[in-house]
């Protein structure tokens, strides 16, 4: 039995995924096993260790604040599953 308990439905909602009850049970069991393995991290002595977010030291990359060529409206919309009036279309959000 795993020491972990994931509220899988809450996590799925945060991730914008819809799971059937069967899927929820299945994924929860698999994730518990994976999280058990991740407990190896808790055994490390990490006091005073700085976190690494990137392997190599490249920080604060900026570019000049100048306009540069980008997608045309037609290019940006070229893969939209639904568009209307040269805009992306989404389901109605305001009644």
């Amino acid at each position, binding site marked *: 039995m795993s020491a972990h308990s994931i509220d899988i439905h809450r996590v799925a909602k945060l991730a914008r*995924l819809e799971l059937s009850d069967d899927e929820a049970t299945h994924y929860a069991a698999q994730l518990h096993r994976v999280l058990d393995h991740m407990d190896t991290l808790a055994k490390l002595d990490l006091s005073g*260790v700085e*976190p690494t977010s990137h*392997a190599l030291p490249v920080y604060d990359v900026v570019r000049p604040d100048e306009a540069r060529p980008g997608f045309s409206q037609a290019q940006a919309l070229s893969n939209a599953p639904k568009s209307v009036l040269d805009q992306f279309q989404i389901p109605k959000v305001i009644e």
Partner: protein
Amino acid sequence: MSLTSLSLTELRQKLTTKEISAADLVRDVASTIEARNPVLGAYLTWDLDAALKEAETADLTQPLGGLPIAIKDNINVEGQPCTCGSKILAENYTAPYTATAIQNLRQAGAIPFGRLNMDEFAMGSSTENSALGVTRNPAALDRIPGGSSGGSASSVAGGIALAALGSDTGGSIRQPAALCGCVGMKPTYGRVSRFGLIAFASSLDQIGPITRSVADAALLTNHLCGFDPRDSTSLKESVPDFTAVLGRDIKGLRIGLPKEYFIDGLHPDVEASVRKGIAKLEALGAHIEEISLPHTEAGVATYYVLAPAEASANLARFDGVRYGHRSSSANDLMEHYLKSRSEGFGPEVKRRILLGTYVLSSGYYDAYYLQAQKARTLIRDDFTKAFEKVDVIVSPTSPTPAHKLGELIGDPLQAYLEDVFTIPANLAGLPAISVPCGTIAHEGANLPVGLQFITKALDEATLFQAAHAFEVG
């Protein structure tokens, strides 16, 4: 004899002497694809007309002039599909722009030709997570080609591509190359622009070549690398000619064998092959010594916190609005997101998004994500210390030979654990290459084994030098 059995250098010679034309070569590759792809399933699509058109104008005076190169289906080439092996991009996505790596190849005269199968969004080590078809290992057709760049390795080892591009987040170039019996190289993080590579885990992803020889890999790497202002992690470093070191001996080169890589889970026949390879390096004059990378065991756990965390954020862009699958049965915006994503993503992608969302969620961030980032520091420091003593680290690429198709489905943790030898180079951002190291007789098949070489950051030259000496020695 098909031209596809020749090296890139040999083909370039035939092209420059006009013995063959670029169009001849493209047609020859296409005919081998048509003959063998129905069995291998390496390619998802290939656009012969587009490639022939490019062949007409390819600059044959350039170093890669006229060479068709096959592309993993997560690297954008304008006007071509780019599915990432996923249903979510398979229906109606045509790349609206071209990746920098492809632009660089084209500038060197190459022709991107054909789209290669992969684990969905590069998540997996077998290509079985593709939603779009099965890819087989040319060495044993009932076995996986490895992954996630399984199509790339299968096409190159199977003789239906001259060379291919893959991407490597936790071993996705090196492991399939090892299992199929070809060469796979992951450059230093930041060497090759990620602009136009559909992101899986941005702090780990890197594009690299899969080829039949180290020399071909060095040649392609020459024309993949370079600073790109469109990738904020791109390195402003000069790119040496990596082919210049080919043929140099390795007398006195200090090679370290990490004792933590020769462990219980390592298949005994794989270990025997690797030991033989190490003996060969020693015979070539290298100085072999045991070293320690004490935090190796934490690598898998670290990776499977960080990579899914980054993936869960990266894959939030698949919202069914701007591109990709859109559910036809949603009544409101929330339902639109839930259904579009749930219908479009396959099981492994959902599993990793859930895992990533969980480790980033309130209350768990410190326990998992921050802890893993700190562990990443220890893993990186292990390498820094090791490279004070040695020039190159050598290890097996994969602990096992290629599994049978279907063997590990349903056991994600076991599949994750098999990435143990390739993950650390990604976490530390180091260049690494897998080179064929013999075959082993296993369950009635002769299965390839790969030997992995790792060097310090930006030292691809030593990597190619050692790998080439091993290959030809």
